[in-house]
């Protein structure tokens, strides 16, 4: 009896209430990529990329639509873009967001706030800083992939396995909000017909204050995290050798308490050497010994330069402050920041070349 009444009720009610708003997937304008530049008369200019999926017969012929609007805030840009779109826009699938370096140098903390507030955003989204205009980068076609967003998403995702550190929205927000830690994002540059990762941009709060070229990215990644791939070319005498990383690990140690803190950063790199350009010598253990010493020299100088730069800009992308906080009970952030430029950091690199190919 009860179940029957209930069923009748259920069915009648469900027939009566087709009232929740719904649109099927294909009726949405699904934004996959967004880019923000400095606006012309408003603060920012947003460019959104909406892929247009072809019908079932011509699956490969996917085209893209770019919509651009100016606004003072991200939501205003969205509102303006909706005015240009024939379908309701949906930002839930946003997979890449780019900011122009110019905009980011003026501070983007309000945009970051939206990213952490909106429940519809994916935390696996990739962020990047464009050296140049984001709109140019988005509105170009790239031969490698059908769509621009795929190109950029895979570019950032796959390079995180090599020289570039992992930077998705979650990692960015984590270091953005953490105490004694600053965020960084990959720097992306548009080349003739292609797009490439050209370095890293470092934030201080919500503002980009400094960048490093891609030649230093390996050094930074090596200081920042443990990783297993990546390559670094190292000048040796007149030529260069290519160091092929097969396992790098890093260890921090805080000495001396908080009064006069001293950091020891120990890096262990296991690498292979397969290519030596302009080095006319037989590959043998003694040469490798020499190469190891050269590499250590190279990495230590580079790392010290990097850290020196961080200290000058008063940024802490390595999270040394955060590390100190977890080690010392009486950690005081303001005091730490005051003393940061005098912080002693001692980088000790150990390179071990394990293999040099199958031909000596």
């Amino acid at each position, binding site marked *: 009896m009860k179940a029957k009444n209930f069923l009748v009720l259920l069915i009648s009610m*469900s027939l009566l209430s087709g009232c929740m708003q*719904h649109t099927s997937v294909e009726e949405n304008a699904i934004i996959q990529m967004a880019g923000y530049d400095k606006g012309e008369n408003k603060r920012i200019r947003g460019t959104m990329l909406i*892929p247009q*999926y*072809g019908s*079932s017969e011509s699956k490969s012929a996917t085209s893209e639509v770019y919509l651009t609007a100016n606004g003072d805030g991200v939501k205003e840009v969205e509102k303006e873009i909706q005015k240009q779109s024939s379908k309701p826009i949906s930002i839930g699938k946003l997979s890449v967001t780019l900011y122009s370096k110019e905009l980011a140098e003026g501070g983007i903390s309000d945009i970051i706030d939206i990213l952490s507030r909106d429940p519809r955003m994916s935390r696996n989204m990739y962020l990047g800083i464009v050296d140049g205009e984001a709109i140019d980068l988005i509105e170009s076609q790239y031969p490698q992939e059908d769509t621009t967003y795929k190109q950029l998403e895979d570019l950032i995702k796959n390079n995180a396995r090599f020289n570039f550190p992992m930077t998705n929205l979650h990692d960015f927000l984590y270091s953005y909000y953490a105490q004694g830690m600053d965020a960084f994002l990959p720097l992306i540059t548009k080349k003739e017909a292609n797009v490439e990762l050209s370095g890293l941009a470092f934030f201080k709060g919500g503002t980009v204050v400094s960048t490093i070229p891609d030649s230093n990215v390996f050094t930074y990644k090596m200081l920042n995290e443990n990783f297993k791939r990546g390559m670094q070319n190292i000048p040796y005498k007149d030529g260069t050798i290519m160091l092929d990383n097969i396992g790098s690990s890093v260890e921090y140690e805080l000495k001396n308490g908080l009064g006069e803190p001293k950091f020891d950063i120990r890096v262990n790199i296991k690498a292979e050497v397969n290519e030596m350009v302009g080095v006319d010598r037989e590959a043998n253990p003694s040469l490798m010994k020499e190469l190891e010493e050269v590499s250590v020299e190279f990495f230590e100088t580079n790392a010290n330069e990097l850290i020196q730069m961080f200290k000058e800009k008063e940024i802490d992308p390595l999270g040394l402050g955060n590390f100190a906080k977890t080690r010392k009970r009486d950690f005081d952030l303001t005091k730490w920041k005051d003393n940061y430029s005098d912080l002693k950091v001692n980088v000790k690199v150990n390179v071990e070349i394990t293999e040099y190919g199958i031909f000596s």
Partner: protein
Amino acid sequence: MWKWKRKEKSSTEQTQQKSNQKKSLTEFIQSLQKSEDFIRYSLGGEECTVYYIKTMSDSKILNRSVLPILNDETFQSLEGIKQHIPVENMTVTEDITLIQEKVMFGYIMVQLHHSAQEVLLIPAVSLESRSVSIPEVEFSVVGPKEAFVENINTNINLIRKRMPLPQLTIKELKIGKVTKSRVAVIFLDGVVDPENVETVTQRLKDIEYDQIIDSSFITQIIDDNSNSPFPQFLDTERPDRVVSNLIEGKVAIMVDGAPHALTCPTTVVELFGASDDYFLPWHLATVFRLIRLFAVIFSVLSTPLYVAVLTYHHEMIPGELMATIVSSRSDIPFSPILEVIVLELTIELLREAGARLPTKIGQTIGIVGGIVIGTAAVDAGLTSNVLLIIVALSALASFTTPIYQIGNTIRLIRFPFIIGAQMWGLIGVSMCMVFLSAI
């Protein structure tokens, strides 16, 4: 699941029984004489008369054991005849109800005087039934290949020979006002919970219905919650399965004329167990059973999830899949829910049509329907091919259930889920799930 519920006995049946009793033997004979196959003739003068229904009685017994003796000698009493005829289990009775019942079953009735109310009943029943064959609904590759037939004696024989125990108890009841079907309650004494036996027999006795033609009639009348879409009895055609259930302490019910046995109480998990599971090594059986369970879940949930995700939560579709789904949907004029309902109904149509037609044509219909209609619908832009795959897979998955009844349940419960998905997306699906688990 097993609750105590008695159904009340109405008074109509009792009054009817009384009026039956009043009928005399002559009236009974007269009413039978309207049929051509009712035979009556007298032997040795007018004294001894033999009655039987030709189509129901075994003429071998009549010709070899009964007639020679009745012809050779004259008897003064029925008891005398009874001692001479070499047939087992004869009865001398005046009870008209019993007489009626037995004669209708094919017993030979012998009357000494015309007016005598007392008759001798000689069992000479000839029952037509097919021989034991291989199970078709619950086929298994390994293991015994015997299935129940329509004859209850054969069926009980199939069970008893697997379990030669004195504790195996069989209670017989006659149910159905018109059909008078023999219903056997079978259980293993000492293992079974007596309360269950009591409940089952009580409920069976309280059944008041004209015809009990198949065991499924009983399922619907005596189950705990007749609104539940889940079968509450395990309906099986495999004697080995019944035996293993009996050993587990369950009660089995068998109806004469039904090639199925019911066992109870049952759990939902059992409904997904195939008999193959018991013949295979445990790891294989576990994996197969898990696959089957997964298939059921997939079958119930896949189309509702399709509706929910496409209508409300398209954020959940990964980027790579998005292109596939959107491009397959881009030409479809209907919303996902309409698309799904139309396709699901098509599948149900095919299934119904296939079940009603003779086997060979049924197969053809399945193939023609599946391939031709499916491809045509996609080509015409009425359904997306992603959905076609999902619906076909979920239909396929619903066939993996070893018990036919639960397969029907799965067919049915998909639809409320689809409606729920349309209303509140995944939360609607979840609510339907709660409701389902409540019943």
